[in-house]
């Protein structure tokens, strides 16, 4: 049995389909549950050292991954000059370490603070485990197999495109080390978990982005159209 094809050629479709359908279903049927479930209100001292490094680290690292997916050619060209490569790798590593620090604080906080423990669900524990695996394998890849940004853009990205274009080519990543494969498969599990957990909150980033341009005041009408309008256009 071809495990590579099973894990990276078939399951991605199953996971992604469940994630998309599940997310839409949850949005349509139980929108009330769509929340970041912030626990800052219960504990805000350790959270400061967890939430800031985690979110800024992971968001920028994720953006790096996405940019490489979108423009792998430019990405590789950038890396062609050693200084730029070192710069990219180093900043990636630092951001990854930031995310790791944040994540460790999250785990410490969930374990030690009784109030936060009271609002911790099994899903939260599972997410923390998945995220820990993801960050640790990511850092391992960056440290052990140089240069991660190069082989990511030249082998993993083509595989991602092959999956997106419904023509999965697992050969692209077949020769990657085990650590990299764990990283990739764990990412798929992460996607799978989105609709079932608080992870949905990062899909709500559109609201805050819209906030930057909308007017301050919102009014909703029952009798006028449009139903939502701004009192005054001051921003």
């Amino acid at each position, binding site marked *: 049995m071809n495990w590579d094809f099973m894990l990276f050629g078939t399951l991605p479709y199953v996971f992604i389909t469940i994630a998309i359908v599940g997310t839409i279903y949850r949005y349509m049927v139980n929108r009330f549950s769509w929340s970041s479930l912030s626990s800052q209100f219960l504990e805000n001292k350790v959270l400061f050292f967890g939430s800031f490094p985690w979110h800024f680290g992971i968001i920028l690292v994720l953006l790096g991954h996405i940019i490489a997916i979108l423009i792998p050619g430019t990405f590789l060209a950038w890396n062609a000059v050693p200084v730029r490569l070192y710069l990219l790798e180093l900043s990636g590593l630092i951001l990854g370490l930031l995310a790791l620090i944040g994540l460790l604080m999250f785990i410490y906080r969930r374990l030690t603070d009784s109030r936060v423990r009271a609002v911790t669900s099994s899903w939260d524990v599972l997410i923390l485990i998945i995220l820990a695996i993801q960050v640790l394998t990511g850092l391992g890849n960056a440290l052990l197999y140089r240069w991660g940004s190069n082989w990511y853009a030249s082998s993993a990205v083509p595989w991602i495109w092959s999956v997106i274009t419904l023509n999965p080519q697992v050969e692209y990543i077949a020769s990657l080390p085990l650590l990299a494969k764990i990283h990739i498969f764990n990412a798929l599990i992460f996607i799978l978990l989105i609709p079932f957990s608080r992870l949905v909150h990062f899909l709500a980033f559109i609201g805050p982005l819209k906030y930057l341009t909308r007017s301050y005041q919102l009014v909703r009408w029952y009798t*006028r159209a449009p139903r939502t309008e701004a009192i005054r256009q001051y921003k």
Partner: protein
Amino acid sequence: MDIRIQLSMCFHLDKCIGCHTCSVSCKNVWTTRQGAEYMWWNNVETKPGAGYPLTWEDQQRYMGGWEVTATGALRLKLLKGPGKLRTLANIFFQPNLPTIDDYYEPFTFDYDNLFNAPLGDDQPVARPKSLITGEFMDKVALGPNWDDDFGGSPLYAANDPNLKGLSESQKQMLTHFHRLFYFYFPRICNHCLNPACVASCPSGAIYKRGEDGIVLIDQDTCRAWRFCVSACPYKKPYYNWNTGKSEKCIFCYPRLEVGEVNACAHACTGRIRFVGVLFYDADKIEDVAKQPDDRVVEAMREIVLDPEDPKVVEAATKSGVEENWIWAAQNSPAYKLFKKWRIALPHHPEFRTVPMNFYLPPLSPILHQAKGDEGGTYDPESMEFFNDVELMRIPVKYLANLLSAGNEELVMESLKKQMAVRMYIRQLRVGDVGDAKVKSALDEVGLTAEDAWEIYKLVSIATFTERFVIPKTHREIKTTIDPRTMYEKRGSVGFGRKRKELVAREW
């Protein structure tokens, strides 16, 4: 001119006895759910006092409300610096968010132990138990009325930001037995015209209802970014730590829509509350919010329109205001108290949210310091009952900090009017004040005898239907009920579905 309607509540502080019946009836109706135990959409504070959450009026700490920038634009204090971009930067962690420790950790007592304790030498006790963790608490460290009636005033009330600008001898009202003075201050959401919570919500979940001005949080759109809690200078949106949604006073809209009175106002034993309709000009909200501190209350009075004015009535009709709402506006106690007689004042107008609840400053105690006290003028032997309001025990400066952005004349105007009405009625009933004295008192504040009688009637002996002039909403065309979900939401008071309690709370 863009005429809109605002539901407004007025509070006669002289009559508030601090019984907290309003808070309890609100709690029983709306916030007995898990995650909402610590919320008091309606709470009553002792003033001077630290309030709930502790020192909420201190905007250096909480950064609530608005400020006018150097360029003359209106900006949320919370977003100082790079403006709205700060929302994105602080979305993961908010430096100004109060935590549960600023309110209090909700608790119950281990009553079971009183009945089931094994036989022993000691009386069994009911130890406090946290409603969040379910664990025993060493002690109850804070509560919603922790400094009620000046409990621990040197520790709590001394931090009241409204004491700013008072002389040391005036501050003795906190600590010196003969000079003690405090009054009660009931608070609900102000349903502001320029709400900071709406303006700060990154999800756009909070909105003002166009038809009646009630500010609500859309529970399905709220994503727990928590900016409303930080941005509201009155700290009236609350974060539900269980559902991960913010909640706030809903002005009992399901009751008001059918003509019922708010739970808090209905239960008020002192009959201190008035609910009515105001017409205002929505085009001017921004201008009013930008007025300097000494002008802001006047500007708020100007934005409220005279419902008897035929032009206003015509414009209101044209913008779709129904007849019963116009009638309600014309008989509105809020309009009379705030604008017509100018005796009610907004709470902290300097926060620039243009709050829409109004308070009659307390006149009591009429008796000021006894002559024996330093600076006192009251002679216990004298038969004179009414004295100068300037010499009252409660510093006018304090009331001005609380109710008129530091503008003492506005508070004096209201106090003198209330005093003149009292003298007028005393003369009518007892006749020992003297017509000339009553006339000069009324003339000084520009009231006629008819006005005085009207004021007396409304604030002292008004009937239920005079205190609460609430028009029914035309539910045939405007409804908040979604027939698809009305049954499943029943029993959850609209804040999410009923769901299984988390495992930690099994008792």
